[in-house]
């Protein structure tokens, strides 16, 4: 029972500049028991990734202050964040960049506009191994 409670206290870092998505996706994940940290720009996102060492990073590509690809590259270059799984969130506008992100070590990508909120949440649970 206690084990069950702690299983859900996984940390997710959501690096996304659209505040609306922080409030919908972020909140939906929080309601499932995940500890969701938010960053609205790339610089803060990278810093939080290092500080918080989350179980999963959800990374948008178009970000203020530091582009998503630079955040990813930085994460992969540093020991403390090298192993953290990263899921790219995109709206299909930049598939070339998404491919580049996979090359740089992103785990997978999610096209936001293709999925309902519930479907996206389920995919994230799957990546975390929390079916």
């Amino acid at each position, binding site marked *: 029972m206690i084990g069950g409670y702690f299983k859900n206290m996984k940390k997710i870092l959501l690096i996304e500049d*659209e505040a*609306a998505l922080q*409030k*919908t*996706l972020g909140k939906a994940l929080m309601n499932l028991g995940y500890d969701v940290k938010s960053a609205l720009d790339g610089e803060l996102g990278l810093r939080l990734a290092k500080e918080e060492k989350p179980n999963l990073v959800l990374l948008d590509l178009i970000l*203020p202050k530091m582009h998503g690809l630079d955040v990813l590259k930085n994460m992969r270059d540093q020991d403390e964040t090298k192993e953290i799984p990263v899921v790219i969130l995109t709206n299909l506008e930049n598939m070339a960049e998404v491919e580049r992100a996979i090359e740089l070590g992103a785990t997978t990508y999610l096209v936001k*506009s293709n999925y309902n*909120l519930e479907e996206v949440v389920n995919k994230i649970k799957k990546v975390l191994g929390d079916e």
Partner: protein
Amino acid sequence: MLTFNPFHRCTQYRISLWQCPQFLFTIMGIFIIFSSIALYSLGQRYISDPRLAALLVIMVSMVLLIISFIISNSFENLAQANRMKSEFINIVSHQLRAPLTNLRWATQFLLSEDFQKSARKEKEEYFDIISENSNRMEGLIDDLLVISRLEEGKLNTKKNLFSLESLVKEVLKEYEIFLEANNIKVEFSLSRRLPKVFASYPLVKIVLENLISNAINYSQGAKKIIIELKRKRNNLIFSIQDQGIGIPPEDQKLIFTRFFRAKNAVQTEVHGTGLGLFIVKLILDRMAGKIWFKSKLGKGTTFYFSLPIIKT
């Protein structure tokens, strides 16, 4: 009633006649007909030496080859224009996807069970998201319609004589709330006895709205915006100076392109459509006016445009 216009594709993409494949083919056809008739008549009368005849045929063939080469190049222009149109459509659908996703997920969240347990105050945030993103999409679609109509020459560009000064005051009144909210003061200086301009009133209004809203959006903190109107020979020059973030030198030449947002502008997180200056340039080009700017990073930017005055 069908009108026969074989060059309509070229006019639609605004490609000049000499770059238009259909037109060039017609020229080539006419050239072939004339040269065949000419060679035949000349040949019959004057040319007994077969080598001369052969030479003339080779020369004509070379000219035809050159024309064909020009025609294939012109197809490239047509293809390019077509590609730009699809690229534009791609960029547009992308721009619309972001607010649409926000809208969908906000409504799904509102409908979810978890949400029913949320506090009243929290609920309002989600209605705001829906409202804001609907407006965002509407703004984008409006801009796109303006661009599309301008490019096809369909926008009503009926001109009349009006006072630019009154129009500026009218637009400033529209933006009064934003100016106050951002604590920005406007200094408006005019030369004496300015003549009226002869231009399209609604289009100039769009230009002013875009320049003024940019000045407001890219100004930092409590600053001033200085607007000046003065006459210079046959033109009326409008200038608007802000004390904002400025435009980095490497981005300056791209400032009037579609959806362009300079690096430092992206970093200030301004959620606009990125089409404002593109529209402004389209309109001024259409009205035989000019637009230009001066900018210093971190200090501010001044945008200028000129409109012709009718000599009375």
